[in-house]
């Protein structure tokens, strides 16, 4: 019995260590890149707008269900939202390529992308 319990504890530890190791490897593979140029906004997987990060602005995304996106000092953040959990507000600000803010209740995703932020805003 005692032996079984020790064995189980060892298995528990190995399991936890395995998951933590996987998390470590994944975060190395997925780590954000350098400074990004665009905040790309998509809803339900469809891109609806992209804003330059080097121009300060504030946009309200959506009507009934809304999130307010503020771009300031090269970083994007959601400053206000009427979703229940407001996780998106806590998540920001983001400025590096690959960083993401999600609002699951509103199916909203804001992601920083790289590339040259040249020319006019490509707002669709």
């Amino acid at each position, binding site marked *: 019995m005692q032996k079984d319990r020790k064995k189980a504890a060892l298995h*528990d530890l190995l*399991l936890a260590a395995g998951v933590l190791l996987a998390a470590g490897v994944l975060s190395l593979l997925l780590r954000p890149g350098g400074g990004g140029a665009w905040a790309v906004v998509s809803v339900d997987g469809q891109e609806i707008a992209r804003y330059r990060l080097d121009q300060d602005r504030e946009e309200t995304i959506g009507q009934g269900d809304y999130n307010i996106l503020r771009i300031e000092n090269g970083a994007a953040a959601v400053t206000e939202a009427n979703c229940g959990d407001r996780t998106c507000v806590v998540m920001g600000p983001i400025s590096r390529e690959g960083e993401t803010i999600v609002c699951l209740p509103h199916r909203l995703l804001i992601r920083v992308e790289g590339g040259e932020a040249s020319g006019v805003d490509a707002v669709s």
Partner: protein
Amino acid sequence: MEKKSGRAARYALLTALALVLSWLEAALPLPAAPPGVKLGLANLTAVFALYRLSLRDAASISLTRVLLVSLTFGNAYSLAYSLAGGALSLAVMALLKKTGKFSIVGVSVAGGVGHNVGQILVAMGVLGTARLAWYLPALLVSGVLAGAAIGAAGGLVVRRVRL
């Protein structure tokens, strides 16, 4: 007859407890927790039901809780995330428990991780992007920590509570 009503009472008791724990967690979020990270207090009832009752009982208690919590605090999407998380979590826990190779803490750790993985998979489907994998490392770590905490608490409860 006696047995049947006893069972109904146990269900009701555990479901009510799960609801209270869900509410408590929503009312008192963990201080300084990263976004989206929760302890999953209500999973204590799932772990308890899995060990002291049966997988079927654990599943119906979890299902009832998820439905009621989503109706009161959430929306259709939070229902989908919670269902996926709860289902994967229970499936993984039942599987690991069956091997007999893990303690309640290990089983609960796997459940915590399964819960978070299930939720992010549904979120990827809803948002139509695999980019959410970016959150996976944080969710894996928080799943391990929350699962260990719930498992340790669950071990005490399973040993001491007569129901």
